[in-house]
């Protein structure tokens, strides 16, 4: 906008029509933001608002059932106390998945940034993104073949030690975490990579020339400077993981009951949308509460 005026104004002369028609800056700002916010309103905000309204109904508003407003759906955690246990399980699965993703993702990103360059780095980045190109369901089902008794994992073990028992751990919480880490690790690598790649090499060289060992460089320089990437990666992982239902259902077997599967059951099996919606919003509130508790850490991390 400014550039336009600079180049065009002298050519047309100071009294040209251009100057009088120049729009105030807020108009262009609004025009540029309109598509995004319009889309967000229609595609995100309105459906979410509808679900929020649903969560106060007594039954799914379909057919001839009368619409009754109630708060009983939000009492689910009191009326059905086993839900608390499921909620804690989901948070723990989310915590472990995020932690493992953070460690593996950060190390992978460091390796990418510090030890590779040019073509090799591009190649490795593409290999990291590859899992994103396959359907999530395919990825999860392939894990069932690896982890089940007499699966690939057992076959490999029996090649080395034919008499060993089974180490397949399909239908356990570990299997769920493995599947989830596989699914969300690329987010963590990419956010850490973006944070690490902006660190000036000179800083690290300066530290090294002043006698800093590798662990000092890692913990005193790389980790604090990459914290924004690590934190946004953690948020990107934690939030979808605690609501996940596909991985627990397929890899969890008997133990695959999480908030995600309970909510999914309400929408598909039990046809109780209000309860599903209220559980979702309760989960959202818990997530926001967790972020609020750690907001100090988060803010320090993202502005560091």
């Amino acid at each position, binding site marked *: 906008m400014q550039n336009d005026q600079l180049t065009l104004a002298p050519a047309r002369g100071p009294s040209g029509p251009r100057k009088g028609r120049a729009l105030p800056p807020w108009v262009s700002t609004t025009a540029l933001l309109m598509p995004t916010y319009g889309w967000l309103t229609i595609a995100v905000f309105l459906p979410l608002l509808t679900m929020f309204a649903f969560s106060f109904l007594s*039954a799914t508003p*379909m*057919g*001839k*059932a009368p619409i009754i407003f109630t708060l009983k759906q939000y009492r689910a955690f009191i009326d*059905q106390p*086993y*839900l608390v*246990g*499921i909620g804690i*399980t989901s948070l723990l699965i989310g915590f472990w998945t995020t932690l493992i993703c953070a460690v593996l993702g950060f190390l992978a990103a460091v390796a990418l940034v510090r030890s590779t360059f040019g073509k090799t780095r591009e190649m490795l980045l593409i290999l990291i993104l590859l899992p994103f190109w396959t359907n999530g369901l395919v990825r999860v089902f392939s894990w069932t073949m690896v982890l*089940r*008794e*007499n*699966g690939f994992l057992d076959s490999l073990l029996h090649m080395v030690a034919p008499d060993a028992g089974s180490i397949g751990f399909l*239908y356990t919480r570990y299997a769920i975490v493995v599947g989830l880490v596989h699914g969300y690790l690329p987010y963590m690598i990419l956010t850490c990579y973006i944070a690490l790649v902006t660190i000036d090499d000179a800083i690290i060289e300066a530290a090294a020339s002043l006698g800093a060992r590798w662990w000092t460089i890692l913990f005193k320089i790389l980790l604090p400077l990459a914290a924004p990437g690590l934190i946004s990666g953690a948020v990107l992982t934690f939030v979808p993981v605690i609501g996940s239902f596909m991985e627990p*259902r397929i890899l*969890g*077997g*008997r*133990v*695959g*009951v999480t908030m995600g599967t*309970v909510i999914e*059951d309400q929408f*598909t*099996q*039990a*046809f*109780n949308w209000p309860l599903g919606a209220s559980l979702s919003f309760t989960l959202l509130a818990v997530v926001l509460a967790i972020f609020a508790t750690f907001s100090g850490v988060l803010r320090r991390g993202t502005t560091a």
Partner: protein
Amino acid sequence: MTEITKRNILKLMSAALVAGSAFAALPGMAFAAGTITVLNWQGYGTDEAWSIKAFTEKTGIEVVHDYYSSESEMLTKLRTNPGAYDLVVLNAARCAQAIAEDLLQSIDFSKVPNSKTVDGAFLTNPNFSKDGTGYAVPWVWGMTSLAIRDGMPVPDSYAALADPAYKGRVAFDDDAIINVGLGALMTGQDMNDPKDLAKVTEALKSIKPNVKLLWSTEDQWNKSFAAKEFDLSVFWSGGSVRSKRNSKLPVTFVVPKEGAVGWVDGLGIPASAPNPEGALAFANWMIDPTFYVEWATKVGAPASANTAAIDALPADDLSRQVHKAEYLKTMSIMSALPDDRREAFNNVWQEVKAFYAE
């Protein structure tokens, strides 16, 4: 530019006439033949390619499919997509619910000649009718009971599910209504209206050490059974025939003394169906002995509601052997559940699942 001559005008006029008559003929053709959209589980009888081909050759009606993966999804689709479906496969228990919500239209049985030999008990099943009018063509019935790996002792009671001999070797259907029904049968209660749900919950919870997985599709059941992940399972009679015949799995279907959980599926026509005539013709084909024998012998099917179709099966047929007439005596048929009871059943199963996961 072509000059406007008599000949050109004639050409133009005849072209317009042809176009016009073709246009006029189009809706008529669509009515006589046209397309019907069937809403069903995937791979469940209506979508057999050979059958659709034979039906289209006979009637000129094209059959298109849409699928659901749970019964509530089916009801959701009926509620939210009026005019999209001509025929829907629905369980008796869900049928009453659909009729109550005016989602189905009544059936003109004079256009379904094969319904003459359908067992009267199915035709007058209270779930399929309202005020004496039928709202679904009874199609197939079957049982949910136990399936055991060949060579293992055959259980004679549902108590076997909790037998320590099967520690970590039992699979359950992830279906609240079926499992609460089984729990009711285990505790000697009415499957459709158990008075003591706490006892049912206790009975289901007692199976925990044995439960290996909860399956939700037949494909998943087959893969896990083939991988020897479990030996004893809650399973469908028709599914066991398919697994034995098609996948050569060593499985035997067992009905213990408490009796099986019975179900019957019907073919209903949504109130908003664009082509009800075509749908009736297809429903008639679905209970035709010609179709049924082929379906049951080549693919494996539940028992047809049409007695004439069952009688047409060879005596050594697996499906005929599994669906023994004697089982009908002990079988309890699942019926429609009022909303609060359905919710209570769902909550029981949700609680049991949470207990299994602890």
